[in-house]
């Protein structure tokens, strides 16, 4: 197991945000983390990256870990190439070698060679996010954390970068944990879906996602999303059902879920507390 979060508990101030979340991501697997806004998805990612202390539990990473944030978070005074190479510099890779490696990666994620020396302010949002992805891939991580990396991009660019990322991740066999609000993105990129719900949040649902072939049509993706949304736990967890406030919804164990393209759905759980 490349990335293992074992019974982690995270608090922000006095409030416990995550209570005993256990999650494992194997090499080559992309786990999509979903849930309502403010439920604790970013807190979980930050805890996994060591940016938030744990109140309880344990995180194990077999290898290096890299992260792509929602915003590119580039150094404004450095070129795109220097930004992509910053993690390699931290690893002590000599200047020429780290620039060569960063350039190769930037080209891989669709960067134009004329833009390599430009500072971030001279690049579009999409280009900046490509630099952030290259920066993460450059350190050859075993695990990759993605916090809604394409949320700020227009649909066309989002699809292009999703494709880019999917091939880069598959090619390297990374253990990837992706936070998104976009079920279409989840279906396109993910192998397994984990839903956080409740306060404090627990894993409310964990199930495999349909394995769509590369370049699957939009229709196939939308169809898979529609099937997924028939699960009341998922629809509830994504805030798509409008139950009464204060209602406690208990999903029956093994509630009926339609089969998905030959994939057995193993829905588990759970109790979702609405507040």
């Amino acid at each position: 197991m490349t990335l293992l979060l074992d019974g982690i508990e995270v608090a922000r101030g006095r409030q416990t945000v995550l209570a005993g979340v256990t999650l494992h991501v194997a090499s080559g697997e992309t786990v999509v983390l979903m849930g309502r806004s403010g439920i604790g998805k970013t807190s979980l990612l930050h805890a996994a990256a060591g940016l938030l202390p744990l109140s309880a539990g344990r995180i194990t990473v077999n290898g290096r870990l890299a992260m792509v944030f929602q915003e590119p978070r580039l150094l404004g005074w450095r070129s795109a190439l220097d930004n992509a190479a910053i993690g390699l510099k931290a690893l002590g890779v000599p200047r020429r070698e780290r620039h060569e490696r960063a350039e190769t990666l930037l080209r891989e994620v669709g960067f134009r060679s004329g833009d390599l020396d430009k500072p971030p302010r001279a690049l579009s949002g999409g280009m900046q996010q490509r630099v952030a992805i290259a920066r993460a891939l450059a350190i050859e991580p075993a695990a990759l954390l993605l916090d809604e990396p394409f949320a700020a991009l227009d649909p066309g660019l989002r699809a292009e970068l999703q494709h880019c990322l999917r091939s880069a991740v598959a090619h390297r066999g990374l253990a990837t944990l992706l936070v998104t609000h976009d079920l279409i993105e989840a279906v396109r990129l993910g192998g397994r879906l984990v839903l956080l719900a409740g306060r404090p949040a627990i894993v409310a649902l964990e199930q495999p996602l349909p394995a769509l072939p590369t370049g699957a049509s939009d229709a196939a993706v939308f169809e898979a999303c529609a099937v997924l949304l028939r699960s009341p736990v998922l629809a509830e967890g994504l805030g798509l059902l409008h139950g009464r406030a204060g209602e406690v919804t208990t999903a029956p164990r093994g509630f009926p879920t339609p089969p998905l393209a030959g994939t057995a759905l193993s829905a588990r759980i759970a109790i979702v507390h609405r507040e």
Partner: protein
Amino acid sequence: MTSDRGAGWRDLVASACGLALLLLVWQVVHARTGSLVLTSPLAVAGRVRELLAAPGTLAVLGTTTLDALGGLAAGGVVGFVAGALAGAARPLGAALRPVATVILGVPHIAWVVLALLWFGPQGLAPGFTVAITCLPLLFIGAFHGMRARDPALAEVARVFALPRAQRFIDIAVPQIAEHVRAALAGAVGMGFKVAVMAEVLSGGVGVGGQIATARAYLETDVVLAWIVLTVSLLLAIETVATRMLR
């Protein structure tokens, strides 16, 4: 591009008009008051030419430059390091900020008098005065720069496990530089003025010493000539410093 160039030319012409107006006022006041009070611009220009041709002038200007830049370097380094540390560690910031404010509040002339008492009329007095007056400027610049750092970039540094030195050089320093640049630009000008003032009072060998001597002989033209030379030198150094900092 063309409009930028046009605007640049217009600015240049306006600047020249401003300077011409200053010279005109200078000439008018000279005509009304006489050479002892205010020598004419042309006579001062002649004196400047003579000073530039004289063998000791470069050494005089060099002494003042050394006092100003040496003091600035010493006080600046101490102020920058202390300000950066104070910005990074909140309790240290709370302890050092009032100290910087007190140092900043002491009149420059008081530091000159104290420096003369501590170091005597020759040697370290001008350099020390410049150092102690520039120190709080750089302290405040570095302190605010450090406090204004982007926490999102600090998270990037942690995720990518940047070593402490790289975090400081690649991430902290460029963010602090914006604030320090403004402080440094002000400190260079102030360093020269304070150095000349300390030299006047200590009778040193720099520009201040020359001005003190000229005052004793009522040579207004010489005083003004040294002022012109000092301002020219200061502008040249400020231009170079600004380019380097950019």
